[in-house]
């Protein structure tokens, strides 16, 4: 197992940055730099801090250093017949575990099995005072102290440098079938929403190019029976499709127009915004490629109770993420200064004043 602990070096770099007032830009595999707002600073390279620290398949827990390549983690789990159940997108060959957790990214299984944050059990982090702190642990149930580990998920490194992460892992399903059916977007939405209240072993559902795709996973018998119950045509070897969806390799994602991530309730009818749509997460995460102005998109989505992220192809200094209500922003700012009082980590990565 290739591993190296450079937490002391990282700690020293953070202390120096605090001393010099130098902002730091945290970098792992550089695969997700395109996400969020642009941030400037000296690079704090975490990729050398790598290696799986512990993985006991019987405990369903894996602990690894943040710079560990995501591929390495997934390969180790696959050897034990296990997986990261939130099916994280890599967005590049060098994706690290730390970047995946810091960005809080989850793949097609998310609505049925949980998100990246749901599987985080604990972490070791370096805060903006250069202190190494541990929160959570390697056990599934733990309510001692505030859940700081999960707070780190999706914080884009603005609160601290993740050093080590413990995750709950799950066995890989014995069998998996993908069913496909031609339909309209509206039909797909109601079909996918109905799956939520049926006891069927669904672990992914999306709508793309006039077709609804439903992936069933579980024991061989369970999957077979569910197929009989739901109907639809089975696609052989569907793995590449879900992989391409997760990694944004489908042609849909290579448009020259900006790409938006639109979050709404899964059963929300099709939104009246001109553009092309791809619905993942059973309708709860909708990808939109559109030339409409962001203000209009935000307004329409907000009217449906949702929120929008400018995912790719937008101005990196603008409001990439949905702006926060004023009182919430104050709490965010206070939290930021509680972890990073000198404002050295990933300045402005999620909001201009964080």
């Amino acid at each position, binding site marked *: 197992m290739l591993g190296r602990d450079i937490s002391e070096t990282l700690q020293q770099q953070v202390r120096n940055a605090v001393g010099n007032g130098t902002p730091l830009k945290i970098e792992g595999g550089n695969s997700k730099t395109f996400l969020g707002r642009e941030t400037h600073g000296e690079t704090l390279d975490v990729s050398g801090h790598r290696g799986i620290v512990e993985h006991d398949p019987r405990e369903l827990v894996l602990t690894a250093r943040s710079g560990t390549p995501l591929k390495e983690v997934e390969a180790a789990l696959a050897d034990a017949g296990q997986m990261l159940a939130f099916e994280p997108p890599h967005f590049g060959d060098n994706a690290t575990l730390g970047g995946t957790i810091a960005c809080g990214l989850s793949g097609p299984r998310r609505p049925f099995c949980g998100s990246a944050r749901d599987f985080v059990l604990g972490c070791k982090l370096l805060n903006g005072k250069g202190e190494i702190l541990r929160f959570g642990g390697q056990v599934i149930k733990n309510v001692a102290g505030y859940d700081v580990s999960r707070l780190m998920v999706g914080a884009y490194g603005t609160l601290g440098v993740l050093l080590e992460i413990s995750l709950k892992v799950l066995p890989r399903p014995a069998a998996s079938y993908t069913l496909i059916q031609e339909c309209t977007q509206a039909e797909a939405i109601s079909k996918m929403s109905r799956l939520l209240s049926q006891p069927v072993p669904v672990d992914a559902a999306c709508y793309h190019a006039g077709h609804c795709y439903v992936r069933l996973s579980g024991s061989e*018998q369970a999957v077979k029976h569910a197929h009989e119950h739901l109907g639809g045509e089975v696609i052989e070897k569907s793995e590449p499709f879900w992989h391409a969806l997760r990694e944004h390799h489908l042609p849909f994602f290579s448009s020259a127009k900006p790409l938006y991530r639109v979050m709404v309730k899964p059963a929300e009818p099709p939104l009246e915004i001109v553009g092309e749509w791809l619905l993942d997460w059973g309708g709860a995460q909708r990808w939109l490629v559109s030339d409409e102005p962001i203000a209009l998109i935000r307004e329409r989505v907000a009217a449906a109770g949702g*929120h929008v992220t400018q995912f790719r192809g937008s101005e990196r200094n603008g409001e990439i993420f949905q702006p926060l209500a004023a009182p919430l922003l104050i709490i965010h700012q206070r939290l930021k200064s509680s972890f990073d009082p000198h404002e050295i980590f990933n300045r402005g990565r999620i909001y201009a004043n964080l």
Partner: protein
Amino acid sequence: MPVSKDGLPCNRDAHEDLIRKLRELLPPEAVLTDKEDLRPFECDGLSVYRRLPLVVVLPETIAQVQAIMRLCYALQVPVVARGAGTGLSGGALPLSDGVLLSLAKFKRILHIDPENAMATLQPGVRNLAISDAAAAYGLYYAPDPSSQIACTIGGNVAENSGGVHCLKYGLTVHNILMLKVVTMEGELLTIGAETLDSPGYDLLALMAGSEGMLAVIVEVTVKLLAKPERAQVLLAAFDDVYKAGEAVGAIIAAGIIPAGLEMMDKVAIHASEDYAHAGYPRDAEAILLCELDGTNAEVSEHIMKVREILHQGGATEVRTAVNEAERQLFWKGRKSAFPAVGRISPDYYCMDGTIPRRQLPHVLRQISLWSEEYGLPVANVFHAGDGNLHPLILFDANKDGELARTEEFGQRILQLCVEVGGSITGEHGVGMEKINQMCIQFKSAELSQFHAVKSAFDPAGLLNPGKAVPTLQRCAEFGAMHVHHGKLPHAELERF
């Protein structure tokens, strides 16, 4: 003006002023100040800690909660929020100088949305009532703490409650989408969203398990799940506790995630059998209950596999509940373990540590050695699937020094849990009860970070002060005491 040691005004005039102003905000019956009216609020489910609050308020609208909070903030009066009061760590223990804010009147189910599989609830809705209301749509709310008949969803969020199905379905934090909360300053915030995630930091995760320290929960939106087609339970008997522990690991290693996986040792089996007559084998040293759920086909397949694993693991007997009545009976024995133990001993002290499952044999062996050393019997009930131990130490509070010995024994168990990589509390929370043990699990810098997190929500430190996270000074004192033979001197003193 006389000031208490916390720097809070404690004179009669200030108290009367507060009560008068509260009466201006609320109807007369919603402000309680008579001793007999305050009595029901003096403790939560951990009744060894009792204290009367200065005043109890029972608002019924969010606007009223905001007005109360603004008033208390202006007067710098501390507030303790309370749900059903079933908590087991003293988290809802009132303050004699403070307001006890009961959410008992917030008991309406606001909306069930079957299309999106979610429900919006007032915080005082009982846990079980959610599943009852959702049943019409084939849905249910997964977390099922043992107090689910009485405990409320607001308290579940505050404690991040679990239940017997955590391994497969997660804790409260995994099953909530959105909260409306009121801060100490009276600000109404929406945390999370009806969508699967929300912009900004994951404050929803912070709120879950925050023990009423960050904000008052006034509305909760939960995720509902489709009811499994079938649930089936197996009961396996073992002549050795360690074999039972090994079997747990073997089931999981086979790629099966049971919906529930519970273990009881001989003392617990006997107590429970005398009480609930579930038909547990009395000659067993340990039993495992393994519930499998899912589709019909899947459950059948898994039952065959699990039976085989249990036999291979040395089970002396494996039974499958033949029908729903028998399934309920198997569970009844387990679910009544606490009251059953309560019958065989004048008092018991329930621990709540978690450990990595592989440490089970080691930890059980150590507990049984200490049990002999202290002369205090222990019944072990264990959420084996998720590593959550509930050793029940049997004692008699009327016997001189026995409570102190019990607490010392309990403290050693929790310390052991931390040493083997676990936690001092899996689901009951820290509250007042385990505040000293927090000093074992966390370093000063980590505790300081917790205090800073609290300050981000409650800069004045008026919400449930003194609970959940100890001051560094307290830990220094506890550490110093701790060195002296691991004994707590002055056990008679209040522990803040």
